[in-house]
């Protein structure tokens, strides 16, 4: 069972989040998608995911949704990560190890500039 302390902390975070929302309009929504088919997982996608979540936590990056998808048919390019910033087109990255993942988080998700040399031409 989760510790009561943790649940209380979660309630506090919720209240703070509500307060923040009232102060400013939410910025353009950002979605990060990690491919977690058998091929992705075997190629290290869970560590890629861990690196992305860690970046959000350390950099206090609010308003990013992190989800997963299955195999996309490019198993040799796994781990694959896709980034969608607001209304812009989806950018697909290949061979995203934990280091590349934090580079994508910093340069693309935080800075708005795709990491060009890792983009897959699809």
């Amino acid at each position: 069972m989760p510790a009561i302390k943790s649940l209380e902390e979660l309630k506090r975070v919720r209240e703070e989040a509500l307060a923040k929302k009232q102060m400013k309009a939410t910025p353009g929504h950002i979605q990060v998608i990690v491919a977690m088919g058998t091929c992705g997982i075997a190629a290290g996608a869970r560590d890629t995911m861990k690196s992305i979540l860690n970046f959000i936590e350390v950099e206090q990056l609010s308003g990013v949704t992190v989800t997963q998808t299955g195999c996309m048919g490019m198993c040799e390019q796994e781990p694959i990560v896709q980034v969608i910033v607001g209304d812009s087109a989806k950018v697909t990255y290949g061979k995203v190890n934990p280091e590349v993942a934090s580079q994508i988080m910093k340069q693309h998700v935080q800075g708005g500039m795709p990491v060009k040399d890792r983009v897959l031409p699809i």
Partner: protein
Amino acid sequence: MREIALHLLDIAENGVAAESRNIHIDVIEDIKNDLLKVSVKDDGRGMDAETAKRALDPFYTTRTTRKVGLGIPLLKLAAESAGGGFTLETESGKGARIEASFRHSHIDRMPLGDVGATFLTLLVSYPHIHWVFKYQVTSKDGPTNSFELDDEEVKAALGDTPLTEPDVLKILRGMIEEGIQALAPQTEY
């Protein structure tokens, strides 16, 4: 696949793809009886007898993006080559339960790996699913300790605050890591 925890993640993905609402993952390390047992139980669409049989065949898959489906056969092989066994119980429309067991001390047993990272990954990326995680350790001569996380309470406390908010992530990661650490699992020899 280098870790049993990665297999768990992979099998759980099948449950998500099968449109489950509730998924239970259990990890049992029983040093006393030299047993390591993991299971994933979902309430998704399940499989009929024919499909369940074919799910064990690496050259069968329901996906259209590639022609092989290695997840289930790989886990079965890993269990069977470590003095254990594998069962798949399923019925069409009634979900599925997969269990793999291993002899804990078997030289060919794959390391259990980062169970916490698997739990956190699933919890955060599929918020629409009700997750129940359990990790139980029975030491050689001592008592049984377990860590359980039913995400219902967590989600009730959070309301519509996303699980990927930085402070939420920090608390969730802490809950899982501390809970597992307290078990003092003896994964390696």
